[in-house]
């Protein structure tokens, strides 16, 4: 096996990395000390988050997806620093804790089968709704849209959705209302739209009142007062992926003028 020389991780931030690259983490002086001190040493260093596209391996981190390397330095609120690879894909792989939009495809007794765009359908128990009991069943029909989060999602088991958070409240999850329009975009666009202070969302919110639900599986649901307004928002969001900021502002200016 050819020993690939690793590159220091911080030198590659913002650059393209390919699967197989090895990133070295900054050396810590504590590593050479006695093994018995590791417990205290780890607490002092702070945790390093190894995000999607990276795996812990050998000397440092191994890249498993091609994309741009991102880094978030260690801050007070969000814990230790984080490294991840910003890659682009259209196919969603269920991840625990992600909020997604699903379509109910089957209703079998106590369980609903929900299509989330992954390799298999997720299951949703009828008790996983706020205020649901064996007698008080939620009103969910085949074809309804559900906004929920994954309770279980790994490659060995069938994914499970729930519409309830850890304290038992719905907090916005559950059946998404009537009307509106559902469409699919790439996963990278969803993350761009969900970033704090996203310009696209801010500009769109100035146009007219509307409601938006973004699922991490690439699905977006839009509802505005008229069908025409809904379709305008849909077209802008779909086109956003390939438009530059200038083109987008021009398109929005034309719309607000009309």
């Amino acid at each position, binding site marked *: 096996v050819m020993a690939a020389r690793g590159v220091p991780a911080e030198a590659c931030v913002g650059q393209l990395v390919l699967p197989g690259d090895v990133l070295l983490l900054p050396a810590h002086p504590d590593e050479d000390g006695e093994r018995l001190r*590791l417990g205290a040493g*780890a607490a002092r260093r702070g*945790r390093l988050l*190894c*995000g999607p596209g990276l795996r812990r391996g050998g000397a440092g981190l191994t890249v498993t997806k091609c994309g741009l390397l991102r880094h978030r330095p260690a801050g007070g*609120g969000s814990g230790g620093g984080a490294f991840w690879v910003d890659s682009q894909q259209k196919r969603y792989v269920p991840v625990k804790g992600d909020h997604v939009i699903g379509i109910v495809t089957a209703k079998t007794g106590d369980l609903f089968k929900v299509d989330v765009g992954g390799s298999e359908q997720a299951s949703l128990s009828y008790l996983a709704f706020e205020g649901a009991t064996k007698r008080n069943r939620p009103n969910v029909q085949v074809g309804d849209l559900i906004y929920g989060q994954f309770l279980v999602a790994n490659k060995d088991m069938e994914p499970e959705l729930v519409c309830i958070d850890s304290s038992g409240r719905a907090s916005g999850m559950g059946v998404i209302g009537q009307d509106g329009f559902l469409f699919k975009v790439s996963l990278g666009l969803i993350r761009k739209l969900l970033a704090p202070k996203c310009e696209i969302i801010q500009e769109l919110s100035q146009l007219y*009142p509307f*409601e938006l639900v973004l699922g991490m599986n690439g699905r977006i649901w839009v509802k505005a007062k008229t069908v025409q307004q809904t379709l305008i928002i849909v077209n802008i969001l779909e086109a956003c992926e390939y438009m530059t900021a200038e083109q987008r502002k021009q398109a929005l200016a034309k719309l607000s003028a009309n």
Partner: protein
Amino acid sequence: FMQRSLDSQTKKQLEEEEKKIISEEHWYLDLPDLKEKESFIIEERSFMPCEDLLYGRMSFKGFNPEIEKLMVQMNSKSKKEEMEVDDKMEADVSDEEMARRYETLVGTIGKKFLKKRDQRVLQDEDEDENSNTRPSKAKKMFLKPQD
């Protein structure tokens, strides 16, 4: 198993084999030490903690007021400072005022539940000091808690 027919030699052989097995087990104890070294790297498959993404449900210009309240709530969960300020602002009445009002309130409501004998005793006590009309008026009128 059958230990009656074992000779001393076979016993020794068995003991040696057992020792070999134990020594192999001893090897396994070394590996956990290596794993502990890398415990400060956490593998995460979700983008949520990396990029601090916002909550997925959004509403603008009052289209869905419940969702707009939810947006403020969920997005401020990541910034916990606002939550602490809100807790302090909620108390309309200070603790001292509450204690004073409660003191007088307990007395006035307590009189309501006294039996007739006890009420007469109270009335006699009042009559010693005041005229007849006053205690009857005091009994009928609602006594406001004094500030």
